[in-house]
């Protein structure tokens, strides 16, 4: 990392002669400040995701089943979403003090406001004829939910999960304003000292974290929903099947 190319070094020089990045600062603070900030950032952004998922699933399922519930729930979560996070943090400090809880609770609420509609929409994406044929085959309600409705809802739920994850990773930094903000604290540190290196490190790490999390979630989604890709390869594979039709014309008609 030490041999910085001249071009990069030139680019890194700010107006006041202070470079955007001081590699030796990074080296000195890596194991303490930077890594612990990263760890805190991970905890603060993924705890709300897990909590949100655990609450949003039953809540979304209930809203999909009793549609009358959905209106009020949606109203509440939308209002919560509209509240600035800093306001929620400040209010919560009065209750839970300067603890992780103060950041985790608002972020969980944001996660809910994204995930509950995702679960409801996902369940709504199950085609009526599929649901009816499940009923007609003799699925009980719980088994239908677990084996038919939820798997089919999964892509939509995962899309919501990805949005919530990226948004949480970015929102955690706001917590730095009350002193609990993971990588966000590098921002406050840099700003306070008029020292750009922590700022740059923070931004790069947050963006990397967001991209990486999104990628991992996408991979998980791919693995969990192999049929979604099958849809995309349909065109490529068609016509390969040997249908046992007696009428040759019928085969033409089917695969056309």
């Amino acid at each position, binding site marked *: 990392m030490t041999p910085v190319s001249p071009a990069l070094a030139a680019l890194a020089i700010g107006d006041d002669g202070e470079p955007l990045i001081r590699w030796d600062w990074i080296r000195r603070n890596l194991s303490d400040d930077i890594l612990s900030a990263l760890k805190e950032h991970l905890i603060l952004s993924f705890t709300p995701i897990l909590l949100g998922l655990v609450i949003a699933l039953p809540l979304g399922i209930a809203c999909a089943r009793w549609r009358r519930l959905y209106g009020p729930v949606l109203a509440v979560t939308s209002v919560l979403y509209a509240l600035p996070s800093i306001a929620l943090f400040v209010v919560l400090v009065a209750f839970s003090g300067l603890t992780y809880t103060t950041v985790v609770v608002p972020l969980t609420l944001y996660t809910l406001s994204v995930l509950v509609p995702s679960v409801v929409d996902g369940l709504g994406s199950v085609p009526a*004829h599929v649901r009816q044929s499940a009923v007609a085959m003799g699925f009980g309600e719980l088994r239908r939910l677990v084996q038919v409705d939820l798997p089919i809802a999964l892509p939509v739920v995962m899309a919501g999960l990805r949005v919530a994850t990226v948004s949480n990773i970015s929102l955690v930094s706001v917590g730095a304003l009350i002193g609990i903000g993971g990588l966000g604290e590098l921002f406050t540190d840099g700003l306070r000292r008029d020292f750009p290196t922590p700022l740059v490190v923070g931004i790069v790490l947050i963006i990397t974290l967001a991209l990486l999390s999104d990628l991992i979630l996408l991979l998980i989604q791919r693995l969990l929903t192999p049929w979604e890709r099958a849809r995309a390869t349909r065109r490529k594979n068609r016509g390969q*099947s040997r249908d046992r039709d007696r009428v040759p014309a019928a085969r033409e008609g089917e695969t056309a």
Partner: protein
Amino acid sequence: MITFDGVTKRYPDGTVAVDGLDLEIQAGRITVLVGPSGCGKTTTLRMINRMVDATDGTVAVDGKDVRDVDPPALRRGIGYVIQQAGLFPHRTIVDNIATVPYLLGWDKKKARAEAHALMARVGLDPGLAKRFPAQLSGGQQQRVGVARALAADPPIMLMDEPFSAVDPIVRAGLQDEFLRLQDEVEKTIVFVTHDIDEAVKLGHRIAVFQVGGRLAQYTTPDELLSAPADDFVSDFLGGDRGIRRLRFSQELDAEQAAETSRSRGDALGQDAAGPAVADR
């Protein structure tokens, strides 16, 4: 045997979909319910497996009131095929077909083996077993739907316009194979269609419904064509010209059937080891 005794269905919004229906559906035969859109065919069908409960009267299977049976248990013993096939998009073809055996708690291996055997019976390439429904053509999906309904070998099959989403040529092929299959399995089949040609081709008995959920005539195809009960029925058959056309295609089908059964008889020696005959 399935019996409707004074059955009426009134939906919560007041629509009377079926009105005082008396109907006896013979075991081991194909009974076709036909009539214009909204005449209550689907409602009638669904009262058999209790996806709809009758408002009045009783529906009985082999003398037993369906209301006395727990719906999931009742439904696992009744095959059901619908127009859009209703396949589970997230399950492979063999797992789709094995749905009811899985629900009944069969051993997974046995259920899969049965599903594979059924694929051959309904004319599906076994190579499709690991595909997902979206990778199949409409006609193939419909075959999977039929195989799925047959998987646990239920004595009764309910079919709601199963072949009407595919184009006419594929439909004709599916109908022929369906008749051939029914010759082997002899299920009690209730088949809904709004297509009178299909009704005449497939039905041992035809129930013509009238909008408002009333049964206009219930008889054999021959009887229906030679003695329509009233103006509604004869209009539905397409008047004199329609009846002549239906008779003509009926004869054509009979000839074709005789021919294929003759050629099948010749080929039986080689076919005996095929999957269609094995296993049952």
